[in-house]
C-alpha cells in the first residue's frame, strides 16, 4: 500500500511539474484526485485492509492527498502568474497619449481676490457681511457725514433710481461705495465691531482702462474701546503683508473722506521693483492700495455709539485694482468682458 502511495505521489508530482497551462491542471486533478483518480482508487482500498494496517494506511493516504492538493494550488498560482505576466507583457500603451480631458472650471479673478482679501481679515477676527446694492441716500451719503449739497458729493457720481418720494425727492440710488454698510452694521450691532464687507458698487463714470461704472469694493470697519490710528496701521500692515508679501512696507498720506477723521490713503512699496520705480508704480516706488481713516465722531454719534467711549477705523479698497496690480492686468474692462480666454488664466 505504502509503495503504491509513494508511486502515485512521485508520478503525480512529476506530471504536475511538466504542466504549463490551466486546462491541463484540471485534467491532472481528475486523473489523480478525481472520483476515479489514481489516489482515490488506492484510498478506496484502505477499508479492506486489516484493522491494524488500516489506521496507518489511512493516515499516509491522507498525507499524500494533502500534499497533492497543496502542490496543485501552488502550481495553479505559478501558472496563473506566468500566464498573467505573459499577457501584461503584451499589453502596452503609449503613455504619452493625453489623459481623458476634464473641463477646467475657474473662479472669476475678482472673486478670487475678494476671497483672499477677506480671508486675510477673517484671520484677524473680522466677520464677512454683505449688504444691499440699492440704497437710500441716507446710508450712502447723509449718515456718512455727506449731507445734500455737500461739496464732497462730487467725489461719487451717482446712478439714481427712478423713484420719487412723496416730497418729490429722489432718495434711492445704486450705492457708490460699500461704506453705507458701516452705518447699517453699527445700527444693528453693539461694539465691539470688526467686519469686512465685499460688494458691488456703481458710479456714473465714463468707462476706460482704469474706470468701470460697475466695480467691487471691500469695506472694513473696526469699532471698540481704545482703537487707535496705530491699530489701523497694524491691521492694514498685516493685510498688506499677507496679500503682497511678507517684506512689504506701508506708507500713509493724508487724504479726505468725509466719514473719517483723520483720513488717509495707504500705499505699499512697489512689489514689482522693490521701491526703485517702474511702470507699475508710475516710477514713484509706491502704489496706492486703499483709503482709510478713523471713524468720524459724527458717524458714531448718528448710530448711537458714544464717541467719548468708542473709537474705530474704517477702510475701503477695490479688489479689481488689486487683482490688476498683482497680475499685471492693464485694463479693468477685461473683468467684465467675460472673455473665457482671459478668465481661464487665473
Amino acid at each position: 500500500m505504502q509503495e503504491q502511495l509513494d508511486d502515485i505521489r512521485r508520478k503525480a508530482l512529476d506530471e504536475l511539474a511538466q504542466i504549463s497551462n490551466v486546462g491541463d491542471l484540471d485534467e491532472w486533478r481528475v486523473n489523480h484526485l478525481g472520483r476515479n483518480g489514481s489516489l482515490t482508487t488506492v484510498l478506496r482500498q484502505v477499508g479492506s485492509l486489516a484493522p491494524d494496517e488500516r489506521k496507518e494506511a489511512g493516515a499516509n493516504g491522507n498525507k499524500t492527498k494533502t500534499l497533492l492538493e497543496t502542490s496543485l494550488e501552488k502550481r495553479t498560482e505559478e501558472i496563473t502568474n506566468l500566464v498573467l505576466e505573459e499577457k501584461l507583457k503584451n499589453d502596452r500603451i503609449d503613455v504619452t497619449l493625453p489623459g481623458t480631458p476634464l473641463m477646467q472650471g475657474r473662479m472669476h479673478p475678482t472673486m478670487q481676490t475678494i476671497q483672499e482679501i477677506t480671508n486675510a481679515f477673517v484671520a484677524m477676527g473680522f466677520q464677512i457681511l454683505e449688504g444691499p446694492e440699492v440704497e437710500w441716500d441716507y446710508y450712502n451719503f447723509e449718515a456718512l457725514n455727506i449731507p445734500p449739497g455737500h461739496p464732497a458729493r462730487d467725489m461719487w457720481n451717482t446712478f439714481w433710481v427712478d423713484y420719487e418720494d412723496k416730497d418729490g425727492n429722489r432718495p434711492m440710488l445704486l450705492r457708490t461705495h460699500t461704506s453705507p454698510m458701516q452705518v447699517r452694521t453699527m445700527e444693528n450691532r453693539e461694539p465691539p465691531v470688526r467686519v469686512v464687507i465685499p460688494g458691488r458698487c456703481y458710479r456714473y463714470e465714463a468707462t476706460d482702462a482704469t474706470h468701470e461704472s460697475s466695480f467691487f469694493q471691500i469695506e472694513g470697519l473696526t469699532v471698540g474701546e481704545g482703537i487707535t490710528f496705530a491699530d489701523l496701521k497694524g491691521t492694514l500692515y498685516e493685510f498688506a503683508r499677507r496679500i503682497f508679501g511678507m517684506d512689504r512696507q506701508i506708507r500713509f498720506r493724508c487724504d479726505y473722506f468725509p466719514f473719517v477723521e483723520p483720513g488717509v490713503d495707504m500705499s505699499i512699496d512697489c512689489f514689482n521693483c522693490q521701491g526703485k520705480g517702474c511702470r507699475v508704480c508710475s516710477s514713484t516706488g509706491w502704489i496706492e492700495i486703499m483709503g482709510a481713516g478713523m471713524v468720524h465722531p459724527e458717524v458714531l454719534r448718528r448710530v448711537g455709539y458714544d464717541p467719548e467711549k468708542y473709537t474705530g477705523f474704517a477702510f475701503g479698497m477695490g479688489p479689481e485694482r488689486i487683482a490688476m496690480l498683482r497680475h499685471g492686468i492693464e485694463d479693468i474692462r477685461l473683468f467684465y468682458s467675460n472673455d473665457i480666454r482671459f478668465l481661464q488664466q487665473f
Partner: protein
Amino acid sequence: MRVSLKWLKEYVDFDLAAEDLAHRLTMAGIEVGSIEQIGQDWENVYVGHVTSVDTHPNADRLRLATVDLGEEKITVVCGAPNIAPKQNIAFAKIGALLTDSDTGEKSRLKAARIRGIQSEGMVCSERELGLGEDHSGILVLPEDAPIGIPLETYMGDIILDLDVTPNRPDCFGMLGIAWEVAAITGNPVNVPKNAFAETDTPISKRVSVDIMDPDLCLRYTATLIDDLKIGPSPVWMQQRLIAAGFRPINNLVDITNYVMMEYGQPLHAFDFSTLTGGKVIVRRGKTNEPMTTLDGEERTLSTDDLIIADAEHPVGLAGIIGGGPSEVTETTTSVLLESATFAHTAIRRTSSMQRVRTEASLRFEKGLNPELSIQALRRATELFVNLADGKPAKGYIDEYPGMVTIEPIQLGKNHIKRVLGIEISIEEALSIFTRLGLQASTTNPETIEVKPPFWRSDLAIPEDLIEELARTIGYDVIPITLPISPFPSHEPDPMGDLKNQIRHLMIGAGLQEIITYSLVSEEMLNLTAPENLFTPVRIWNPQSEEQEYLRTTLRANLLKTFSLNQRNVESGLKLFEIGRIYGKRDNELPEEREILAAILGGQRSELSWQGEDRDIDFFDAKGLLEHILGHFNIVATFEAAQDPVFHPGRSAVIIVENTPVGHLAEMHPNLNKKFEIDTEPVAYFELDIEAILPHIHDGNYQPATRFPAVVRDLSFIVDTETPSGSIHEMIRTFPSVVSVVLFDIYSGDQIPSGKKSCAFRVMYQNPTRTLTDDEVDIAQRQLLEKLQREIGATLRD
C-alpha cells in the same frame, strides 16, 4: 489748481526742490498730480532789446529788426506787426527748440534766407515759446527785463498741478498753499498789505445793496472804483495768470482773476454805468425769468437760482457767471467790485441745474468763509488803484446777514493719544498749529485752544486738529499695533457660506465663473425675463439704453456671454454666475435675491483621441443641478413647465419641499438665434440660492446597517406620458425600499405605441434583520400591484 513756484515764492520762501516739495505736499494731503517745467527747453533763447526796426527791401510786410543781446547785435527778418524799437523781447538763436506756430510741433531753429536777406535767429511769439496760444505778434517783455540773460533764467517756472480735495477750498488760493509750505518749512507767510487811498465821496451815497434772500447770500461786500484806465495788465501778472491757466484779457478782468488765485475768493467786476439805479439786488430768480450769461447762453431761471440784479434786470448768476450788459468792456471807467459769500448749496444746485461750472462756482460750492470776502476785496481794490489808476470811493459796502463766529476748538492732550495712539507734546502741537496760521494757546497744561483762521473752513472739531498734527509730523512716526479690544461674538453668515460652497462645487464640476453687469436694457428683459416675477427697477439717469434697468434675471447676460465665447473654445462651453436680481417694491428698497445660473452647450467633453462625444443637453444641466443640491442633502422634484424663453418640451420647474426654487430647461431655439448662438441645444438652469437655504439640514448620522440588501430589477410598461419622476417617487417611498435607479427606458419595437418600457433596479433592506427571499418576493409583487393600480403599469415579459 496750477501753482507757479515762482509766484508761490512771493508769499513764502522755500529752498526745496520741486520734486521734494511736491512729495511733502502730497504726503500732507495736498496731492500733486503732475509737475510741469516751463522754459526747460528754452536753450538758446535770450532776453533781447530791439534797437531799430527797418523796412525789408524786398517785402512790404516784413521788417528787419536789430536786436541787442548784450554782447552782440543780430539783425533778423521779422513779420510781427507789433514789433517796435526799444522793446524787450525773447530772441531765439540758431538751434533753439521752438514750437511751430502752425503745426504745434517742436523743431530746432535753422538759419534762413527770407526774401533775399539772411536771418540768423528769430523774435518769438508766446506760442513759439510754448507759453500760450497767442501768435498775433511777438511777446513783449517788461522794460526792466535784464538784457542778454537766458530767457529761462528770467521767465522759467515750475508748475505743480494740485488735486485739491473738496474740504480744502483754501488750497484753491496761492495763500492757502503758502500756509502749507510754511508748515513744512517753518518759514513765515507774507500776506499782502492791501493799503490804498480813497476819495472823499462815500460809496453808500452812490450804491445800495439789498440782499433779499439772506439764506443764500451770507455776505456781500463791494467797492466802487472810478477813473479806471483799461489796458493790458503788467507782464508779470500776465505771466502768472498764464501759468495758472488763465488767458489774460485786460487789467480789470486780470486783477479779479489774479486775486481769486491769490485768496481763493472769486470776485466780480460790474461796469457801474450799466447798473440801473445804482442798485444791486441779490435775489432768487423768478419762474421762467430770462437771462443771457457771458458765455452767450440764454437761460431760463427758476426760484432755486440766486442772481444778482440791478433795479431792473438780472446782471449775473450769483457766484457762477456774469450777465451780458454789465460786463467790463474797453470803454469801462467805473467798476463796482463784488466780493460776496454765497451759500455753497445754492451755487452747487444752480451750477448743476444750469449746467455751467466756472472757476468761481468751483470755489463757492466748496463753502467759503465770509471773512475771506473782505480780505480779497481790499486786495483787488488796491490792485485796481495801482495797476489801473483807479480812484476808490470812500469805504465799502458790507451787507452781512449770515454773520458767522468761528468758535475756538478745545483739544485735550489725551484726545490726541486716544485717536493717534501716540503722545504729542503741547509744545510741539502749538508749534505746528502756529506754522499753519492757526491761533493756538494753552488754557491749561493739558488742553490747547485753537481758533481756526478764516481761510480754513474745514476745521471744526478736535479730530480735525488731530489730523493737522498727524499730517504735519507725518504718519510714519505713529507705531504699528494691533487692536487689543476683544473679538466680537461670532455671527454666522449662512448665505455667504452657501454661495462659496456652491461656487466651489460649480468650479469643481468644470464650469467657468463669470461676473456680468447688473444693469441691462429693456429689450434684454423683454426677451428673457421670466413672466410675473420681479418688476424691474429703472435707473433715472442711465448712461445708455443698454444699462437702463436692474436685471430681474441672469438669462440675458449668460446668453450674451455664451454667444461671445462660443468660438473661443474647442468643445463645450460651461459658464455660471452667482449674482443678484432686483425687484421693485413700493416705497422701500428693492428686493435683492442671490441667484445661481448656469449655461451649458456643445460637446460634453473636450475633443479627445478617445473619440467623439455626445452634445450637452437638458440632462447634463439636470445632473449638475442634482449634484449641487445633493451636496446639501436636498432632494428636488421637477415638473414640466411652460416658459416662452425655453424649449416648450424641455423645460421644468425645480421644486424643493413644495416650493419652486428655480428653472431647468433647454433654451428656445429662437432665443439662441437672437443671441447669435450656433450651438444647439443650450441647456440652462437657475436656482434661487436663498430659497434653498432653509432646506439645508445637517444629515443625521445613521450607523451603516449590517444586514444585507437584496437587489431586484423591475421592468414594466406604462403610458409614454407617465413622468418617470413620479414612478421613481412611488417606488422610492415603498416600504423596505432603500434606493431605486432607473436604468433603462425604451419605446419602439415590441412596445405598443403610446407606451414605454421602464426598468428600475430596486434595493430592499431592513435595518434590523435580514430579509428573506420570500419577503422580498412579496414586497416586489405588492409594489407591482401598486404600480398597476395607480399608473396602469403592466409587467414586461
